[in-house]
């Protein structure tokens, strides 16, 4: 009994120690990378930020700063990729939005066209729509339950129930549109230079489109060293698999 208690106590201490180490460690590394950036040591800053990314310490600020560092070394593809990652974590981050537009303009990167729902339902993010859908759904469920047990059923409450159901359905539709649209989990950014989308998986196949670094694509499938991707201008073609990276890690 005593031994079992000791093991449990030791395990708890180890867990707490490990947790404190995990939460405490990223901060100095982040501060050091920022200092490197401020000192103009951009490659070192990139290395510091990337090490945090590899250790799964992710934040919108980290990816934004990493994008800035890549911009400073002239790697527009990776700069755009990291701005996109920052916006994937925090869609309303104004700095990332501004820098992304700037780098896109400079690199002449191509963008995928937004679908109609993405364009008109973008005042909330997918996560916000998820919360809205959940809240509206449970409110609708409770309203329905109340109406079931009520001796009288006022029209106002029935209208409220219909409205809540409509909000739930609309939110689910918006989530679906976002998840199948431009910024879904297959969204990727061209990071290599002189990438040409081709008609077939061969270097000498016909060119579909020349993709500047930072161009936005959607990876549809991967075959060996090649990825089949949806390209800007409603085109499709094969690109080398290592020439683009997915936005969502």
């Amino acid at each position, binding site marked *: 009994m005593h031994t079992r208690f000791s093991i449990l106590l030791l395990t708890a201490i180890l867990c707490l120690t490990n947790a404190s180490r995990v*939460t405490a460690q*990223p*901060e100095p590394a*982040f*501060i050091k990378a*920022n*200092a490197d*950036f*401020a*000192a*103009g040591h951009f490659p070192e800053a990139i290395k510091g930020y990337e090490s945090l990314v590899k250790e*799964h*310490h*992710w*934040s*919108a*600020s*980290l990816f*934004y*700063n990493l994008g*800035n560092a890549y*911009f*400073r070394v002239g790697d527009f593809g990776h700069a755009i990729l990291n701005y996109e*990652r920052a916006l*994937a*974590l925090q869609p309303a981050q104004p*700095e990332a939005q*501004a*820098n992304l*537009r*700037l*780098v896109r*303009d*400079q690199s*002449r990167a*191509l963008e995928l066209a937004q679908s109609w729902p993405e364009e008109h339902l973008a005042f909330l993010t*997918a*996560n916000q729509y*998820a*919360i809205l*859908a*959940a809240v509206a759904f*449970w409110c609708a*469920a*409770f309203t329905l*339950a109340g109406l079931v*047990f009520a001796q009288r059923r006022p029209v106002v409450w029935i209208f409220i129930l219909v409205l809540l159901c409509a909000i739930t359905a609309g939110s689910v539709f918006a*989530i679906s549109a976002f*998840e199948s649209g431009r910024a879904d989990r297959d969204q990727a950014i061209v990071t290599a230079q002189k990438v040409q989308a081709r008609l077939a998986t061969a270097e000498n196949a016909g060119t579909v*489109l*020349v993709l500047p670094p930072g161009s936005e694509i959607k990876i549809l499938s991967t075959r060996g060293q090649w990825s089949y991707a949806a390209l*800007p*201008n*409603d085109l499709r073609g094969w690109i080398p698999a290592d020439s683009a990276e997915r*936005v*969502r*890690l």
Partner: protein
Amino acid sequence: MERAMFRRLFLVAFLALAGTQMARAEAPTVTAVLTTSETEEGRPVQLQIKVTGDADAVPPNDIAVDGLEIRYTGQSQLVEGRNFHFSYSFIYSYTILPLKAGTFTIPPQTVRTNGGEMHTPALTLNVAPNDGAATRSRRGRNSSAGGAIDERKLVFAELIVPKTSAYVGEIVPVEIRLGFNTRVRARLAEGPNLTGQGFTTQRMPEPKQSMETIEGVTYQIVTFKTAIAAARSGKFEVGPVEAKALVQVPRSAGSGGSRSPFDLFGMNDPFSDPFFNDPFAGIPEQRQIEIKSQPATLDVKPLPPNAPASFAGAVGIFNLTTEVKPKTAQVGDPFTVTATLSGRGNFDRVTAPGLADDRGWHTYPPSANFKADDDVGLSGTKTFEMVLTPNENKTAVPPLVWSYFDPLTESYVTLKSDKLPVVVEGWAAPAPGAAVASTSATPPPAARPTPATQAEDILYQLTDPPHWVQGFTPLFLRPEFWAAQAVPLLALIGFFGWKSRERRLANREGQKLAAWEQETAELQKRLRRADEPPDQYFAGALRLVQLKTALVRRMEPNSVDAEATASAFQLDDERRERVRELFRRSDEARYSGRQNGHSPVNEQTRGEVLELIENLS
């Protein structure tokens, strides 16, 4: 019986009449005809000598005409009846094979009859020269008298190139005509293929068919239209057009040999009849015929030097129109410029026009759409949609410039569209905070002057402690999101349970009240009856008062006393005292042990009790 007799008499009379007619037949006659008086060298015709009225006539054995080979081929009989006048005729047939061209006269021939020697009229045969006669059977019979099909006229191919000279890249229309003699059944098996080097051929759409008579022969004409474009300069031979057709033609007799092996000396051998050479003669045979046209020559000239910078190889005649949408946009927002090039020429070399001045604009690769106005694609409209984004304030989209070579004027033509007025909004100097990249841990001061070159710089680093996240997985795909849904779910289940219990309890109370009401009604009936002893009567009256009070106060009947009743019904003093008396008498009857007797309660007491109870309301 009489009818059979009549038939016999009629037959005898008919035969007698026929015999009479035969007996008084006129003297024999002789005529001679040619199946045709016009033929060509190597094409046989038939001579028929008809002798009427003499079955024993002897026709001429040998008819000799220089340049004609005349052979006796047999005889046939012909019975003709006209107004019960019957005549027998014997037709002696000869085949005449013209050995050379010219006009030949077959002299009168002598026929020996019972009436003496008779003579046929002289006949004239015109023989035209024929180059292919040597390849034909010298003894074969015609597939149809006077209607032999010339194999050279079964099918033909024709290549029509309307131009003899063109420029490199210029589209030259080409027409291919295939003709099939309508007297034979024919179909195209392969092709047509336009052979040649140094030019590209446009796609060949579905052909058109028509009927046409050429030199007296009716053909079904299949017309293919296409176009060619020379890839380099020089003199090219276009074609020939080659195709293969399957044709069903009547079998030509004797195609495999000249005469029967039993007729080595050209005698009148019955086995030399063409039937024995080819017993299937007359049944059509299918042949594959290769059709080939004459080639055409095309002189291809190179394009002149000093082509404009916007020239990409288009040759023809074109027009350019442009349009922009929307007319108003923010800096960085896209304008879509639609450039439409219409006309006639090599549209595969028609590329998108370019901006005359692209400073301050970002251009994206255009999309192209071609709509042909004809089957071949010689003329049509090619539409380009280009996306432009202004980097700065602009009042118009610059003109679009595009060049082509006009083969008619033999010069380059540069098309330039008008400026497309637009409004670019939102143009302002970047915010100071957005203009400077921070090199320190703190954001730069907002009032810091912004050099013009820094307007294109990125924003500062973020130095606040970051908010670390678990991953990129959307909220609705995370387990914790769905786990959180358990809270409202449990709340909803609890709500259902609470409301259900409440309803169930409400039902139980209602059942109890209903039972009390029923008991009240039964007691009232019972108390009106005069057959109960006092103890039972007062006990019933007391229970009735308690039930009525319980129904008003929603309390247990057994716990009701006189004061509770008086309070529940707000009784005055007199009635309150009467209620107390009722409770007291009931208790006396139940607990005192005195004999109340078995006689029923008297009428007056019962009336007072009932009046008291019924007024409790």
